[in-house]
């Protein structure tokens, strides 16, 4: 295997919950020792429900949030050891596309100015070439060059997401964190953005960490998938393996809950009881044990946290999963 572009080792992020009224502020254990790699040109899908820590992973990798512990190496550099100047240089190579194209653009900047910001900050092109470069970037994401003078409110959600992507691409990154990039969009537009991301990856050799709650969307874009639950990766492997023959009971439940738009292909539904638990109260044993339906579930599941071990072409953290 070629050297990974990004390597995350034992990433942990805990923080104190905010409290407006004072009172107790429990520790939120958002990410509890997550490790994975992303190869150049590859897409890793990071999947889970709200509160599972998937977005925190993405933000911590970019040091938009400081980690509690762990290590992230990007293009060979230890990101958490970088001084501010070196971090700024590294960040040019790693960018993020946010979920909500409505709140992630400055409403008082024309979209041309928004896209140009990164070029100016990193002094990537001479001043007189910025305009041309912005037009070229807008073209690359499927927008007209004459839209550069307009403001975000004049654009639809799908167009704003294209602007967000152009803004990320401006600084020539090698790696994009895509944090739920299509979940706020209508299905007809969602497909446009997924195709655009695929085209850009092919043209520029980009790597993506694609964070989403929708397994069908992730299957469309990712070569490998990591499934998160309560701050842990519970299963990781190739897309065929994780979706075709899921080994962790949570992955199986998540898959069976995906609404499939085909009445003849309704699979057996596993309906989990209860809600995803709070990251302020992570169980001592297997994080999924309280909701687990596995027939072999036993006392060990409640007391001993299962480690990731090889299964199929990937890894799974379950005492009772078949290898």
């Amino acid at each position, binding site marked *: 295997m070629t050297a990974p572009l990004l390597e995350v080792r034992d990433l942990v992020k805990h923080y104190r919950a905010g409290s407006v009224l004072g009172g107790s502020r429990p520790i939120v254990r958002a990410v509890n020792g997550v490790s994975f790699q992303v190869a150049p040109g590859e897409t890793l899908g990071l999947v889970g*429900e*709200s509160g599972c820590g998937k977005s925190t992973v993405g933000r911590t990798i970019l040091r938009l949030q400081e980690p509690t512990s762990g290590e992230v190496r990007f293009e060979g550099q230890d990101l958490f050891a970088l001084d501010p100047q070196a971090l700024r240089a590294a960040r040019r190579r790693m960018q993020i596309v946010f979920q909500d194209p409505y709140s992630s653009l400055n409403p008082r900047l024309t979209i041309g100015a928004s896209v140009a910001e990164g070029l100016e900050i990193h002094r990537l092109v001479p001043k007189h070439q910025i305009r041309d470069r912005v037009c070229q970037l807008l073209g690359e994401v499927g927008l007209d060059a004459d839209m550069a003078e307009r403001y975000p409110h004049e654009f*639809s959600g*799908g*167009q704003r997401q294209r602007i967000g992507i152009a803004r990320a691409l401006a600084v020539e990154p090698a790696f994009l964190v895509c944090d739920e990039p299509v979940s706020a969009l*209508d*299905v*007809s*537009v*969602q*497909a*446009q953005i*997924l*195709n655009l991301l*695929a085209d850009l990856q092919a043209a520029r050799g980009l790597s993506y960490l694609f964070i989403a*709650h*929708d*397994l*069908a*969307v992730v*299957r*469309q874009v990712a070569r490998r998938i990591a499934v998160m639950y309560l701050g842990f990766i519970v299963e990781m492997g190739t897309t065929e393996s994780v*979706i075709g023959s899921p080994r962790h009971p949570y992955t199986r*439940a*998540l*898959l*069976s*809950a*995906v*609404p*499939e*738009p*085909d*009445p*003849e*292909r*309704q699979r057996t*539904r596993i*309906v*989990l*009881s209860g*809600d*995803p638990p709070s990251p302020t109260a992570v169980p001592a044993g297997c994080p999924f044990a309280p909701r687990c339906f596995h027939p072999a579930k036993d006392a060990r599941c409640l007391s001993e946290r299962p480690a990731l071990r090889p299964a199929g072409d990937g890894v799974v953290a379950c005492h009772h999963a078949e290898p």
Partner: protein
Amino acid sequence: MTLLTVTDLRVAFPGPNGRVVHPVDGVSFTMERGETLALVGESGCGKSLTSMALLRLVPPPGRITQGSGILLDGQDLLSLDERAMREVRGGRIGMVFQDPMTSLNPVLTVGDQVAETVRAHQRIAAAAAKARAIQLLGEVGIPEPAERYQAFPHQLSGGLRQRVMIAIALAGEPALLIADEPTTALDVTVQAQILELLERLRESHGMAVLLITHDLGVVAGRADRVAVMYAGQIVESAATDRLFRSPSHPYTQSLFASIPRIEGPVGRLAPIPGTVPAAHAWPAGCRFQPRCPRAEERCAVTPPIVTLAGGQTCRCWLAAPTP
């Protein structure tokens, strides 16, 4: 037996430059007792406004125009005075909305909110209303309903709050339940629970359910019939199996082609080009024509509503018999 007959429903709003726009523009459908009808479409298609109009809750300055008809059990809802209409809301028609956090009163216990609705529709003593409320909370699957009666909305998870909303909707023993994106704000495993619950309640209470959703996956296997909306109009309606097996309208066909699937081969998605136009910019003739892959010259003229085999209807020239 027919429960609801909607004919030529039209909602008018003041538009730009003193014009009047119709975000709901000539919607007609019927619902049988105990039936689930899904109203499907992307944002801005008018599906939610249609449901608000059924309850006569169109926000001002919008209004339902002359010539629209809404018959519930043969009674003309549009001719009722406001007081009689209040009896219908939460009485014969129950409502569940997308976001349970904003629909519940944050300073009342959830039990009191259910009991309040019970007493609004039945002459019944406070103690009996409380007992009925506890019974309803149990029926919607809230564990320990007597204890949870005292909980405030913020103390419950999103899934439990949505169950409380459903209990409130059931309190008036409705013949029709309108569920507007009831699971959109919920995690996928919780979504599965709520959809199962709605299905179970529909059977045990003999209610008809009008399920409003953007997600064709939610519809499959849940609804008896589907009506697809685009730009303020129903463009296709059919029994669910038939719609999924042989969608007839190019918009419905394009929607299916743009959805990533969890099974089958992964191919490039076929997005619908462009975006859903706003109500003041709907084109003359067929409203889907500018985005339609099969548009022809005659599509500039308003298409007929064609009835196909099995009662499937399609608002498209291509479905019309060739002259």
